[in-house]
Each structure stands twice: as structure tokens, then as C-alpha cells.
């Protein structure tokens, strides 16, 4: 069903109901959807059609009373119980078989680990590189093994028609096989607090495995192909710092980085310290140990997620924010 309504759709390839199909299971899901849609449309037209017909035909006219008719009819009532039952059994079955395709990860699969936290995604590739965007090759099975650092999140890629909650305290899995190169939105579908709606990033589907490997190699080499300040900015943007620490002096959930380096900080335990390299490193690894006055202890730790080289780059970046 390709009903095109100008201005309503941003993407030419999108249908009236759905974004473009981007994975192997999308077509199955869409066809189940349209099957149900047609059955429902039939019944809806039947019900409302009869209702309108009766409204017109049997409207009250002066002097005309309602005609006495039978008050029950077993055959009729059984038929409108049994026919919908059969239809719903068919619906269950088609939905069930498509679901099995969607939820059975294939044996050989490219594996990416996902950590969700308020309010960013971290995709960890097999070579250890962590990126806030999901990059995958086209035509290859990809399995995401997902964990959450704090609350419930849910990873949803509308173009792939798959979604799975990310539950703290356990791993959940989601797999897909992208059919078309391009960029698609990836978002959090389970309410997770203040910036739930900003927990949106993109999936980049590379045309070939070669393209993907090349991208991964370059991306992972960040300290080689970027200056420390550039690398620090990259971490700032990709590891979630940007959600709480502004660069323009605005106070968000955490202190702004503007002019931070070298300044005296007052802590809630009454002590104070100068924001130097050691202080910043400690704040990244042990964020709860010193809380600056006026802020809540909500920053997650980055221990094990950032190397010393990464932290050095972040320090360089903060230092550059005069």
C-alpha cells in the first residue's frame, strides 16, 4: 500500500504506514500488518456500514413504532462467534511464524555488544572500538547483545521492524540482516527519564563488508588520526558527556566544561580541589567520590570503558574549553 501524501512523508521510499523496509524480516512484518489491516477494514466497514444503514432506515418517524423482531437467534450468534475465532487463529499463526524468524538469532552472526545508559548508546565492536552510532555491513546477520547501566531502555530501529528492551541485570538479544545500504534512525522506545526522546542515534548500513571493515579500522584508530583535542571532542560527543556537560557555560545536570580547567571546585563533603588532570581523571572513573556543590550524584562511571589514552584526550579537550 503506497499511498503518497505530499508533505506528510519525509522519505520517498516510505509507505503511508511504514518507513522503508530495511531488513530481511521487515517484509514479513509488513505483510502480517496488511493482512490484519484488510481483515479489520472489512469488519469495520461492515459494522459501521450496517450501523449507518440502520440509522437511516430505522430512524424514528412520528406514529411509527419499532417492529417486534426475534430477540435471539442461535445460528446467527454462533456464526459471528466462530468466524472471528477462526480469523484470529490465522492472525495468531502468521504473527507467530514471523516472530520466530525475528527472534531466532542465526548460528553465524557478526556480534556487537550494546550498553545503554541515560541517555546514550554505546556499540562495542569485536575489535574493542566503542561508537555511539551503529555501523553494520549490508546482507550480513548482525546480533546485538544488550545490557543497561541504569534503567530500562529499548532499542528500536523502525526500518528494521525490530525492537527489544534493554534490561539492567540481564542480557537481551536482537538480530537483523540489513537489506539496503543507507542511514536509518535508531531510538530508545522505553521511557527512561528526562532525555528519553533525545536518546536517538542512527544505524549506518555499509554497502559491503569491505566498506564496513575499512570504516571500523579508521574509526578505531582515533588517537593516530586525530589530535588529542579532536579525539577528546569525539569522546565528549559519543560517550554521553554532552548530555550533561555543556560547553557554553549553561548549567545542565553536570557542571559546564567552559573555563573549568584549573578552577577551584567546592565539594558537598566540605573539601575543595583544583580541577586539574588528576581531578578530571578521578571524576571520570569515580564520579561519586567528589560531588561538586549544587549537583546531584548521578554521573555513571566510565571505568573499563575508556583507556588512559582516551582520558588524556578528554582532559586535553576540557583544557581547550576556555
Amino acid at each position, binding site marked *: 500500500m503506497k499511498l503518497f501524501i505530499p508533505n506528510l512523508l519525509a522519505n520517498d521510499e516510505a509507505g503511508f504506514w511504514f518507513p522503508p523496509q530495511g531488513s530481511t524480516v521487515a517484509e514479513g512484518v509488513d505483510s502480517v500488518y496488511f493482512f490484519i489491516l484488510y481483515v479489520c477494514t472489512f469488519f469495520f466497514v461492515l459494522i459501521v456500514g450496517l450501523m449507518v444503514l440502520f440509522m437511516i432506515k*430505522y430512524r424514528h418517524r412520528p406514529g411509527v413504532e419499532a417492529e417486534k423482531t426475534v430477540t435471539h437467534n442461535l445460528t446467527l450468534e454462533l456464526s459471528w*462467534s466462530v468466524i472471528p475465532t477462526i480469523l484470529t487463529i490465522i492472525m495468531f499463526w502468521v504473527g507467530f511464524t514471523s516472530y520466530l524468524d525475528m527472534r531466532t538469532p542465526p548460528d553465524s552472526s557478526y556480534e556487537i555488544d550494546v550498553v545503554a545508559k541515560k541517555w546514550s548508546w554505546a556499540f562495542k565492536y569485536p575489535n574493542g572500538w566503542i561508537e555511539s552510532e551503529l555501523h553494520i555491513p549490508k546482507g550480513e546477520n548482525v546480533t546485538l547483545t544488550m545490557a543497561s547501566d541504569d534503567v530500562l531502555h529499548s532499542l528500536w530501529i523502525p526500518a528494521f521492524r525490530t525492537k527489544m528492551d534493554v534490561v539492567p541485570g540481564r542480557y537481551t538479544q536482537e538480530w537483523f540482516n540489513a537489506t539496503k545500504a543507507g542511514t536509518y534512525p535508531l531510538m530508545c522506545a522505553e521511557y527512561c527519564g528526562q532525555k528519553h526522546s533525545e536518546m536517538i542515534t542512527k544505524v549506518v548500513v555499509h554497502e559491503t563488508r569491505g566498506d564496513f571493515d575499512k570504516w571500523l579500522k579508521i574509526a578505531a584508530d582515533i588517537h593516530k588520526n586525530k589530535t588529542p583535542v579532536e579525539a577528546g571532542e569525539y569522546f565528549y560527543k559519543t560517550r554521553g558527556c554532552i548530555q550533561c556537560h555543556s560547553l557554553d557555560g549553561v548549567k545542565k545536570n553536570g557542571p559546564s566544561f567552559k573555563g573549568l580547567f584549573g578552577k577551584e571546585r567546592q565539594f558537598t563533603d566540605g573539601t575543595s580541589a583544583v580541577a586539574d588532570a588528576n581531578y578530571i581523571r578521578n571524576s571520570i572513573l569515580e564520579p561519586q567520590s567528589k560531588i561538586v556543590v549544587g549537583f546531584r550524584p548521578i554521573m555513571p562511571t566510565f571505568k573499563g570503558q575508556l583507556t588512559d589514552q582516551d582520558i588524556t584526550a578528554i582532559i586535553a579537550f576540557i583544557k581547550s574549553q576556555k
Partner: protein
Amino acid sequence: MATIVDSSNPKSNLPVQYRELNYLNCSKGWKSWFFTLDHKRIGVMYLIGVTASFFFGGIFAVLLRTELLSPTKLLMGPDTYNQMFTLHGAIMTFLVIIPGVPAAIGNVILPVMLGAKDVAFPRMNLCSFYLWMFGAAFFVAAIVLGGLDTGWTFYTPYSITSNTSVITALLGVFILGFSSIFTGLNFIVTIHTMRPPGMTWFKMPLFLWALYATALIQVLATPVLGITGLLLVVERAFHIGIFDPALGGDPVLFQHFFWFYSHPAVYVMILPAMGVISEVIAVHSRKHIFGYRFIAYSSIAIAIFGFLVWGHHMFVSGQSKVVAVIFSAITFSVSIPSAIKVFNWLTTMYKGSIRFTTAMCYGLSFIFIFSIGGLTGLFLATLATDVHLHDTYFVVAHFHYVMMGSSLVGLFAAVHHWWPKISGKLFSEFWGRIACLGVFTGFNLTFFPQFILGTRGMPRRYYTYLPEFQNLHIMSTMGAYLLGISSALMAATLIYSVYRGKKAPANPWGGASLEWQCSSPPPHNNFDHPPHAGDPYVMESVVYDEEVEGFVPVECHEKKTGATTASGDNEV
């Protein structure tokens, strides 16, 4: 048949509608209301409370929709937005829809429909109202003490970590639960023990069947919500590790507990509305209801199946695939009794004499809206499509079609159908119908675009969104404005009628159930003697009388006019 006369009144040979004392004016002063044991007064107080809550929930809705006119900030920041959608949901669910039809309308109508003087436990009834007020006060306190931003579902672990007034709100929910259980118990006992001579189970009006099925759910499911709420309070206060994974708890367990109540609660919201529609369609079509037993059984079937399907809220929660498949299969079972009811209502209209009164207009709107709400449930019961649609605007649209479009429109139908009985006044049918048209149009304009938003990829509970969704959001917000204005018009029409409305006859629409046999409004004790009940759907037992401008029993009419009209005797 309507042989109740007031012997102390000199006009006692006149039909009851000419009596002057009624439940509204039989005693005066605020004490006579606040300490009343009269089910009708308690029902009216509920109705006022529910309306006030609806006003606040509605204001929140309009503000939320206004914010969503644009993906950028218009009125409020994300924190305020999150608190507002939470309170909109919690107020509308716990303070408006759940008590709406059963506690407000049910309290006024149920005993009168049974030909009883009151409910079985009048003091418990008053207690349940004060528990409701007390619970509502906790909600107000939660708003004042820093809001609530967890969503009305209180999902863990977010609700454990959120620094808003979660405990206050949960205590409110706990207390409201008791109110709901008391009302349910009262209705079950009343229906079991106080039916009048001649009213067997299968001669009971279908509204009573619906209230009975609802009461069963209230009594059996609500304790689970209470316990879950308490566990969450304990978890927050003492960090025991029931739901918090950081302490070894399981957040999915909370979802199981929560939905074990909250899915059946959906039927607490919709079943009474279905009961209302069964009455409204039959009375205003002047036809015997079609397939009485199937409708009665389907209410009970919905109540039973409602307990077995909670897992369909959790297809993507990480519960096992086998469990998801089983829940999907059982979920479809709920759709069948719902479909049966719709077909029965349609057939009831067949060869009727349909009067488009305001109540009937809401009844017909209900059939239209509930069909969409029910049918879109099939997309969510089906596993493959639910994975895509879960937690999107499709779900928002679906449950608003069921909870708001159907339950609330059912409540509106009930209010208009029984307004002459409750207030003793007739409202302006013209303005009533205009408001109904506005509600219907505004509602569909608000929520239909949300189905499309959902399938296209708009998640629910989003403060901001991708720019391509803006047009549909604007449509939706315009609908919400129309809906808000129309609801206000409806309220104005009804309130105006209290002061300036024409005095209502005992039976303005021609209903054959017992509540139409006592005067409007009913006297303090409803009936002096239990009336003899016949078939509540033999509409031929009453005929229109020009003099009283309402319907009167056939035999009274004959006695007065001496005419011999065709007898629609409903004596058994």
C-alpha cells in the same frame, strides 16, 4: 408496574412523577450530604469528584498536545513534560476512568435498577467514597511535593531511582485500590441478595451484568496492585532488592505484577461502558436487546479472560519467547466476546425506531470508536506486528480509542441517558448533540493520526521528535483542542440544565427497566415496596403520554385515557 404512591401526599393518586420530595431536596445542609448513606447522593459526589479530576487530566492533555505542536520547546522543558504526561495518565486512569462508570453512575443507578432502597452496605459505600477522596488527596500531594515522572506504570528500576514523589503517589494508588474493592464487594452482595421479586439472573438488565463482572475483577485484581505498590514503596524506602537489579531484584517481575492488575483493570474501565451501551442502544431504538444471554455471558467471559492475558504488554520486555507465544494466543480470546457484543448491538437496532437523542448519539459514537479500538488491538496481540508497534504512538492511539474513546464516551452516554433521573431536569438536546458531534470529531482527529505516527516510527512518551512527524502532531493537537472545547460545552449544557432545565418526567426515553418507574429524581428510598420486575427490555410496556411529556406504563395510560391501545404486557 409503577404502583408506588405516596400515601402522605394528597396527590397520592397521581403517578409518582408528581411527588415533590426527592433525594436531592429531602434534607438540607452540607452535613446531610457529607454524612449521607443514600447511594444516590454518594454517586453524585463521586460524579463531581470524577468531573473535577477529568478537568485536571484534560488540562494536562491540552498542555501536552500544545507542547507537541513543535519538536522544539514551546511551553515547558522535558522534566515538566515528563511529569505532566505521568499525571495525565495516572489521574485519568485511577481517578477518572476506573471510578467513572462503576462508582459514579453505578452507585446512583444500580440500586434503583434493582428496585432496592440502597446498596447492601450503605456505610461501606460512604467509606469507599472517602477513601477515594483520601487517595485523590495523595495524588494532589504528589503533584505539590515535586511531581511524579515515572509514567503511570511506575516501571522499575526508574521508579526506584526517580527523585520525584513516587511513594506519595503509590500510597494514593493503594488507598484508591481499597475504594475500588469496597465498591466491588458492595455491588456483588447487592446484586446477589437484593434483587426484587421476579428478577432472576437472566432478567437482570445488562448494565447490572456488566457491573457484576466489573465488581468481580475489582475484588480479585485490585489487591495485587495494592501489594505491588507496597512492595515498590518498601523497595524505595529500604532497598530490599525485589525489583532493583542493582540489589539482585528483577525489573521484569514488577511488570508481571503490575500488568496482572492493570490488564484486568482495562476491563474495569470498558465493561461498565459496554453495559451502558447495551441499555442506551436498546432504549433509544425502542427495541428488545438482541441476544441477551450472549451479551451477559460475554461480560463474564471478558472478566475471566482478562486475567489471563497480561503478558501481552511484555512481548519485548525480555520475557521468554514461549511465554510471549502463549500470551499472544490467549490474548485473541478476549476479542471474541467483544465482537459478539458489537454485533448484538447492531442487530438490536434492526427494525427499531431510533431516536437520535444525545445519549444515543454517544452510543453510536461508542460503536464506531470501540470498533477501531478493538480491531487495532489485534495488531498488538499479533507477535510480529507488536514488536514493531510496542511503545509507539500506535499503542497510544489504540488505548485512547479504548480507554478514552470507549470508556469515557460510555460514561458520557451514561450521564446523558440517566441525567433526567439523577438531576430531575432535561438538558438541551440541541446543545447536547452539538457537543457530542464535537467530541466525536475531535476525538478521531486527535487519535487517528497517532496510528500513522506509530507505524512510521514515533515512540511514545517523547518530548521532542523527528521533524517529519510534525504535520501529524499538529493535526492531533487541533483535534485535542476541539475535544477540549466540546467537553466543556457538554459540561456547560448539563450544568445549565440543573438551574434552567425543564422538569424531567419519570421516564423520558421509554425504558422498561425499574429505574424508569420511580420519579425523577427518585425519592429518598427509591421505592416503598420492591417493585415486581419483568423483562427489562420489553419497550412495548410503556407508551408516550402527551400530558407528562414522557413515557408511562401502558395500563396507567389506558386507565387515564380510556383508550384501548395494543397491550404490551410484560407480566410473567
